[in-house]
């Protein structure tokens, strides 16, 4: 391959990476903006019911119309962004804080520790986040808190696996072997050498897991096992609109659109970050 074609290819890759990152960041910002805005201002109180104005279409006074109780849909969409972000943040937080250290431990200790940790991760892998959340709802009753925790636990294996494979790569490098030979404590090696090298992978995993958590929360609330009324949640809005689907199909479209924007945003952001952090990937891999 000639030098000019390599340069050309590089330019192309960075263009693609930028599009992914750019669209992803814009969509995620939209969701964050909606959540922040909901604390400052919404057109109406999302929970206030105006029976006389139920099932209205889009208009200047109700941008996304009103629902079966005459509540303003746009205000509810703004409020729903809060739950979406909260669930995503807590679930990713739990999975990240538990899964990453476990993965690093497995990668550094090897032997029995590794075997036990990774088997545990494998078994947890047979319990997808949504199934874990349904189990939690059966035990603790439905609610946002048990949903967040369950989705978080269900997402642990992903982080453990990523962290372990990253750690294994770093452990074979000469500078880590040198650090270990000079009898530096394991924690220090983990912090100084392993962490900086796997942080990129972990960030990518966080973004992708965030998208999955948003999906899981929406599904769970749709089933009536997640966020409970009257708290606004996009999945619950879908559940409520299901029986009015023939009267007012837009009640499905708006929260559906909101979910799609959030999921696509975090997925694209993850793709963009992956291209940036992983030099091995050529931007072609999607």
């Amino acid at each position: 391959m000639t030098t000019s074609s390599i340069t050309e290819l590089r330019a192309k890759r960075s263009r693609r990476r930028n599009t992914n990152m750019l669209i992803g960041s814009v969509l995620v910002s939209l969701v964050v903006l909606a959540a922040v805005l909901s604390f400052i201002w919404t057109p109406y109180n999302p929970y206030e019911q105006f029976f006389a104005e139920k099932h209205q279409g889009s208009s200047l006074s109700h941008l996304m119309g009103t629902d079966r109780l005459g509540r303003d849909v746009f205000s509810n969409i703004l409020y729903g962004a809060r739950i979406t972000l909260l669930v995503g943040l807590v679930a990713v937080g739990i999975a990240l804080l538990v899964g990453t250290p476990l993965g690093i431990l497995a990668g550094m200790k090897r032997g029995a520790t590794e075997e036990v940790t990774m088997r545990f991760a494998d078994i947890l892998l047979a319990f997808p986040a949504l199934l874990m959340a349904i189990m939690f709802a059966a035990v603790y009753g439905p609610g946002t808190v048990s949903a967040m925790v369950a989705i978080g636990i269900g997402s642990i294996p992903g982080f453990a696996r990523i962290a372990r494979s990253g750690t294994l790569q770093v452990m074979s490098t000469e500078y880590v072997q040198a650090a270990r030979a000079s009898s530096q404590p394991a924690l220090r090696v983990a912090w100084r050498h392993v962490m900086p090298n796997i942080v990129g992978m972990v960030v990518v995993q966080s973004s992708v897991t965030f998208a999955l958590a948003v999906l899981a929360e929406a599904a769970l609330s749709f089933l009536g096992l997640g966020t409970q009324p009257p708290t606004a949640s996009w999945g619950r809005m879908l559940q409520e609109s299901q029986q009015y689907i023939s009267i007012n199909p837009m009640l499905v479209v708006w929260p559906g659109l909101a979910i799609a924007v959030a999921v696509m945003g975090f997925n694209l952001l993850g793709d963009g970050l992956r291209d940036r952090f992983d030099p091995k990937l050529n931007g072609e891999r999607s």
Partner: protein
Amino acid sequence: MVMRILTNIARFVASIIAASILVFVVLRLVPGDPAQIALGVDASPALLEAKRAEFGTDRPVLVQYFDWASGLPFGDFGTSYLSRQDISPMVLDKVQVSLILVLLAMILALVIAIPFGTFAAVRHNKVSGAVVSAVSQLGIAIPGFLAGLLLVIFFALKLGWFPSNGWTAPGVDFGEFLSRVALPVVALASVQAAILTRYVRSAVLEVMSEDYLRTARAKGLSPMKALFKHGLRNAAIPVITVTSVQLAALIIGAVVIERVFVIPGLGSMLLDAVGNRDMLTVQSVVMVLVGITLAINLIVDLLYTVVDPRIRKSA
């Protein structure tokens, strides 16, 4: 190779046992007493005692676990605390419904994903390839139940082509079955097709940069011919892996889809049991779902061992 197969089976059994312990522990943390739930808050202590004896919940937890777990290999899940009916025949009945949904959806997803993914890879630096990638990105962002609702709005309510919900067993009336199963299967398949398209695309792209493909070109094969003769078979391995993982995701996805279309499968059974706090049924259905997932993993591992000579030799 025999050694490897045995290891895989042993690992499967160990995973099932570990999973059953996990399910039991999580679901037995329940604060409520099944006897109390069955009889109501006003029940007298003597009645409660009798009910606990009937359910067997007065025995030590470990005994209860072994009692439940020892039935599992034989498909015996015990008797529901709530309906007092045997759980196993119900599970058997419902699992068929769910498996029909899942398998049809997976076939449809692959039929869509393989040609489109290959196309997107071959045309990766053309607009048409980018369009396929963009559409698949959109498809991933639309969860199955949302796709289901949108399909109902359009094809059931607007056009009236399909019923909006319900279920007919294929043995009862095949035509009716097809019209009822169409929308849920498309809804389930859409997300999977989008995900698999991306994996097929990247697998084919990876293969396209391999040396043996260049060799095939050098010996005079056209790009298409080289790809079909030498490339796709190699691209198949990662795609099979992802398909097995996604099959497990589909089983959970079906739980939600069944709710949208009011289909009496495992998902509806699980959700009803959760709603009624019928814990033994919840426990059993979850175990079946997890068991299916682990069984799929086992089958794929075994397939690799048989199909891939590199893995076969290494054992």
